[in-house]
C-alpha cells in the first residue's frame, strides 16, 4: 500500500463524506445512510484506480446510487425500509399538522413527476451536481442531460403552478366570506 494512495483517499473521503451522507439520508433515511456511505467508500477504496480524478464526486454518487439500489433489492433491507418509510410518513403527518405545508406541497409535486425527471431535479437542485456530473452519474451524454433537465424543470414548474392554482380555488371555495358590517343580508 502506498502512503500517497492512503493520503489521496483520505482527501477524497474528507471532501465528499458530508455530501454523500446528505445524498444517502434523502434516499434511505438517516439510519441506513451510514451503511450506504461506508459501502460506497469501500468500493471506491477497492477500485481507487478507477475513480476519475476530475469527476470523483460524480463517480461516488453513481456508485452510491447502485449501492442503494442493491440494498433495496434485498428482502431484509426492503422490510426495514418499509418500516422506515412508514416512520417517515408519520413525521410528514406531524409536519403537516404543524403547518409546514409549503415543503410538503413542493415535494408532493416533485413526487408526481416521472422518476427520471425526479432524479434529474434531485441531483441538480438538491445535490448541486452540474450537467457533466449528472451525465456521469446517470451514464448518458451531457447533451442529453441538458435537454432532459430543461424539460423536467419546465414540467415541474408547470405542475407546481397548477398545484398552487388548485389550492387557491380550494381556498376561495371554503374560506368564509366576510362582508362589511351593514352589508349583510339575511
Amino acid at each position, binding site marked *: 500500500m502506498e502512503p500517497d*494512495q492512503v493520503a489521496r483517499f483520505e482527501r477524497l473521503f474528507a471532501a465528499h463524506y458530508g455530501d454523500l451522507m*446528505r445524498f444517502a439520508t434523502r434516499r434511505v433515511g438517516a439510519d441506513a445512510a451510514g451503511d450506504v456511505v461506508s459501502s460506497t467508500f469501500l468500493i471506491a477504496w477497492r*477500485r481507487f484506480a478507477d475513480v476519475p480524478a476530475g469527476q470523483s464526486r460524480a463517480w461516488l454518487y453513481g456508485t452510491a446510487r447502485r449501492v442503494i439500489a442493491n440494498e433495496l433489492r434485498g428482502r431484509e433491507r426492503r422490510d426495514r425500509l418499509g418500516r422506515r418509510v412508514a416512520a417517515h410518513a408519520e413525521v410528514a403527518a406531524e409536519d403537516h399538522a404543524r403547518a409546514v405545508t409549503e*415543503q410538503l406541497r*413542493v415535494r408532493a409535486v416533485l413526487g408526481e413527476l416521472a422518476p427520471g425527471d425526479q432524479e434529474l431535479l434531485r441531483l441538480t*437542485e438538491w445535490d448541486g451536481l452540474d450537467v457533466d456530473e449528472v451525465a456521469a452519474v446517470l451514464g448518458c451524454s451531457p447533451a442529453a442531460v441538458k435537454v432532459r433537465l430543461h424539460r423536467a424543470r419546465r414540467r415541474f414548474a408547470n405542475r*407546481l403552478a397548477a398545484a398552487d392554482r388548485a389550492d387557491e380555488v380550494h381556498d376561495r371555495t371554503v374560506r368564509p366570506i366576510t362582508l362589511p358590517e351593514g352589508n349583510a343580508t339575511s
Partner: protein
Amino acid sequence: MNTTTGAALARLRSADPVSGMRAADPDDATARAMLDQILAEAPPVPGRRRTERRLVLAGAVAVTAAAVVAAGVVATPWSHGRPASAAYAVTADGDGAVSVTVHWDQLGDPAALNAELARLGARTVVMRVSADGACRTGFATDPAHPPYRRIKFGEHPELRDPARFREYEWSQTPWLDQTSRWTDGVAFTIRPDRIPAGDTLLIPYELGASQPAQPAGVDGAVRGSMLVQDVPACFPGPADAVYTTNGVEVR
C-alpha cells in the same frame, strides 16, 4: 430559464428534506471509524479496471485478488511465506489445524483443493460462486451461526474502534483464522475442531467478469464463510440470490 421556473426551482431547493440536517463532519469519531475500517481492508489493486461486486457477507475472510495468470498451475507444499506460483497449497499443522494458501485467479476447478481438504479432515469445502442464472438453488446455513450479521454501533459503541471491530469479527468465526492476505490471494487456517458438530465450513469465492481483451484475466474475492449442514451442489450468483441470516435464498 424564465422567472416562473426559477422561482419554482428555488422553492424546490428550499424543500430539500435534509436542508435542516447538520453537515456531517468527516473528522468526527463516526467518520474516522468508518475511514479506518475501510483502510483496514485489502489495499486497492492499482491500474486495473474491475467489475463492481456486491458486499454481502460480514466477517470471515474478505480479500481482493488481482489478475496474475500463470500457465501450468501446480499445487506445491507451502511452508512459510508467500507462495510464488502455486494455485494453492494445503498443510496439516501439528495441532489439527489445516493451513491453506490459495491464488483464486489460478485455482480453476476447486475439486483437487477440496479433496485435499477432505483428506486432512478440514471439514471445509471451497466453492466458486456460479455465474448469474447458472444456479437457482438456495440453501440453509446453521441457524446458530448466521453468516450475515448486522452490528448496531449504537448498541456496541466499543466496536467503532476498527481494531476491536476486527477482533469481534474474528471471534464470531473461531474455526477460521485469516493469517495473511495479499493482492492476489489469501492464506488462512482452518480449525476443524472448532467447527460445530454436523456442520461443514463453506467458503465461497467469486471471480469477476473478464474484460473482453483479457480472456484469462480474472480477479476474485472471498466473500466470507458460512456453516452448512448440507453442502449445496452449487452456490447461486448475486443476481439470483438473496443473502439472509438464514442462508442463501433464490430470488
